[in-house]
């Protein structure tokens, strides 16, 4: 028996998301169990199972933190642009 992680895609343009796991002897059974456990009512466009041992999570997740200030990469860095534009337009009038 092996643990299979279960993933779904809710609609054709949505990303694949994790929903949980099942314990099964092979891929076919894992797919059947995944369908019965998680999708009795929902109808995703795609269903995936992946053996947990084939997944490779990043262990040191602290490298995912920004480290230094990277606010210039965010849309909030440009807040107030509309006001800036209005001010310039008013001065030109």
């Amino acid at each position, binding site marked *: 028996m092996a643990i299979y992680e279960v993933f779904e895609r809710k609609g054709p*343009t949505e990303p694949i998301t994790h929903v949980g796991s099942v314990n099964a002897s092979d891929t076919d059974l894992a797919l059947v169990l995944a369908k019965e456990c998680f999708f009795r009512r929902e109808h995703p466009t795609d269903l995936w199972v992946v053996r947990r041992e084939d997944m490779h999570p990043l262990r040191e997740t602290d490298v995912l933190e920004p480290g230094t200030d990277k606010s210039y990469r965010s849309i909030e860095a*440009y807040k107030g*642009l509309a006001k800036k534009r209005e001010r310039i337009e008013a001065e030109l009038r």
Partner: protein
Amino acid sequence: MGDEREEAFRARVERGHVVEAGDWMPEEYRRGVLKFLEMHANSEIMGALPEREWIPRAPTLRRKMSLTAKVQDEVGHSQLLYSVAEDLGKSREAMFEDLIAGKTKFHNVFHYPTQSWGDVAVIGWLIDGAALVTQHALLRSNYVPYVRVLKRICAEESLHLKHGEDITLELAAGTPAQRALFQEALNRWWEPIMHFFGPSYAPSNDALLMWRFKTKANEQLRQEFLDKYVPRIWSLGFTVPDPALRKDEATGRWVYTEPNWETLKAVVSGHGPATARRLGLRRASYEEHRWVREALVAAGNRRSAVEVGLAAS
């Protein structure tokens, strides 16, 4: 053979069904979509080059960091797009090699030199604005692997647009010399921007539109761009170098001087003012980094061999 399946495919897409990479598709659809995606991917990686030239010359540290981040984003977009294109049956290596050999295309606007910081404003605001108009329309494309990466690309491009608008507003609020810098850049870039959307075809002549891969015709996209950006250019006190440009209030459509389409044809077929230099840069970095790719493959092979050895022992 194939005709029945092709008819069924056409009927399905006309009912609004979507297409996945693994689905059966007519050869014309596959080839058309692959060519389109390859061109988009090429454009992202080639589009990073004109802006990269301005990283060392950015006026402040903040501008330097945000421009660097933007260039990184563009290269990242090309990676996402090459992956989507690869699934339609052409390897990444073949796409890179065709690009540097000048066999495949990239957007006309990246065939031009950048001459001043005003160009960075025009590229960031108006060229990214033009690209966003076309990309937003493609969020409703029927080739859904493309749509899924476009969602991410559009989110990042929206940030680039703000970055470009911010630089533009700074120049607009600046000294007469700063305003002149933007105006001069706009004058040079206007025709390439009009070219960017392509000539206006009858929809029946645009195969990808007929397959519902594209959702809007070139002229419709150009009209949307003009509608959104021309009033903003004017309200900042700048002018557009086209005396005929105006909105016809009766039809709601913009009237403009027809750009020279022969110029576009020449530029995108490898005869733009900066084509040779930019492709030279791309070729040089592809060649100089060949050893890195080879070393990675060799290291991967050795690791697999070790794993196989461990499993066998």
